[in-house]
């Protein structure tokens, strides 16, 4: 609890502290960490609590980002997103666009989940990877939106009462979104729904024999995780003001997976720590070498061998998946 309070205080005071230190540019890195923490926690809902190892989670992240980018792009040049069968104008208001990004990602997750959850283990990994790659190549071939080169946003979205072009405003918004999602995730995994998901990871047939249609529960979990990843995508599009198909590539799903494992799967705060460690290491090591993964690799091997519950396990001393 002390650790949690300290971390919350640090996050709340971070922009002020960085201002004192004259390192304001790091606020952008902090926002990036919060966004990746959100997508990592969403993956952990499936992976750590539900035992669904997906290599296609970045697809939802990318779709959320593209929804924001496409609508913002059309809003800027005044053209409609759709002109038939009805006219759908471009938008740049976050209060409409971000829920739309969540909705589209959730719908996509429902379709992908309904098909892929009929498999398990290695087949599940491969089918989620295949769906993500299909989307990746679809956006590569979508010349109208930049194809391989991606698409730039001319400005961040509008948000009532906040100026998202201000990095500090944007940071606090990302922090609030992550905080709210962590709260939702906590309630979710402690609820009956969460118990069914966690129990199914251990013994799905037993859970069915207790009267639970586990497929529906797992699908709901998959959709919630996909929707949250879509929201993270909407945030990253605003953060970088640029999107590209690379956001959906399976290696990007691998990066999110590494964040979860590094921080500690099956824990809510582990993925947050994993995202922070990964991105800070990337930032620091990249100063010295472009082959920074060469140094991150051994660190991951050590975590996999000696700290099965990741950094969270090391810090808290807990050996068990804890809510």
């Amino acid at each position, binding site marked *: 609890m002390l650790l949690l309070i300290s971390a919350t205080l640090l996050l709340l005071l971070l922009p002020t502290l960085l201002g004192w230190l004259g390192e304001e540019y790091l606020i952008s890195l902090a926002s990036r960490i919060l966004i990746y923490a959100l997508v990592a926690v969403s993956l952990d809902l499936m992976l750590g609590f539900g035992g669904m190892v997906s290599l296609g989670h970045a697809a939802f992240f990318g779709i959320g980002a593209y929804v924001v980018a496409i609508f913002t792009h059309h809003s800027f040049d005044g053209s409609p997103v759709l002109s038939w069968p009805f006219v759908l104008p471009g938008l740049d208001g976050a209060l409409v666009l971000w829920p739309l990004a969540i909705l589209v990602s959730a719908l996509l997750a429902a379709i992908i989940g309904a098909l892929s959850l009929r498999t398990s283990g290695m087949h599940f990994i491969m089918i989620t990877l295949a769906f993500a790659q299909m989307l990746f190549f679809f956006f590569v071939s979508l010349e109208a939106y930049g194809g391989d080169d991606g698409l730039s946003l001319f400005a961040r979205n509008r948000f009532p009462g906040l100026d998202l072009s201000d990095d500090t405003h944007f940071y606090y918004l990302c922090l609030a979104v992550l905080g709210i999602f962590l709260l939702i995730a906590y309630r979710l995994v402690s609820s009956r729904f969460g118990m069914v998901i966690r129990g199914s990871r*251990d013994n799905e*047939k*037993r859970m069915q*024999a207790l009267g639970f249609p586990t497929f529906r529960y797992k699908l709901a979990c998959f959709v919630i995780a996909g929707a949250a990843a879509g929201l993270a995508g909407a945030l990253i599009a605003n953060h970088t003001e640029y999107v590209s198909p690379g956001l959906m590539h399976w290696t990007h799903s691998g990066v999110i997976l590494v964040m979860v494992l590094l921080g500690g799967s099956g824990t809510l705060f582990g993925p947050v720590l994993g995202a922070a460690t990964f991105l800070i290491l990337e930032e620091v090591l990249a100063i010295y070498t472009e082959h920074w993964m060469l140094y991150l690799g051994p660190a991951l091997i050590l975590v996999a061998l000696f700290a099965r519950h990741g950094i969270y396990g090391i810090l808290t001393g807990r050996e*068990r998946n804890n809510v």
Partner: protein
Amino acid sequence: MLKVEGIETFYGSSQALFGVSLQIGDGEVVTLLGRNGMGKSTTVKSIMGITPVSSGRMSFNNIDIHPLPSYAIARLGIGLVPEGRQIFPNLTVRENILVAAANRGGRKEPYTVEEVLEIFPRLAERLNHYGDQLSGGEQQMLAVVRALMTNPKLMILDEATEGLAPLVRKEIWHGLSVLKGRGQAILVIDKNLDALMKLADRHYIMEKGQVVWSGETAAIAANEKLKARYLGV
């Protein structure tokens, strides 16, 4: 309540059940007896929809349960305590109990956590422990309690006391007799013939995937030849 008529079950191309039939009435305690590998657990798995049945009829309270999925069968009011306990190791004892809580059997006064813990008080001291931190006996008690929390009309126990210490067995049998006293219908598989004779009303003996004998406790108790031939007693 439960009516099984001539079911046949296969594992791949190998036939495990050859026309098994049995019935259980309201409030009855019935056993499935027989040596290892005779098809008792397969019968239970077939009833629960865990192992698919290829032919025959099964109904529960006049509702056909073949070929319903196992979750739908459980929702009709059949609670299973499976072989090997199969409690959820990463859920606490409390969570293992709460996750199952439902009034599947439509009881007027469904079991509460406090009530089921009165039957197995040892679990009350372990509520915050994880499933895999329990002893074998405690796990078995938890498996029984978990099934009870579904408020089943019929409870099925597969190998109810296998591998447990004598004192723990005694607790389990005592718990089951309490349930019988409350009118709970039970189908039980176990090798402890003495305890089963005291608890059960009727028995089915299985051999090579078939029911070869059925009758009441008095009939089996008096038939030494039967016990020697099919039960190895």
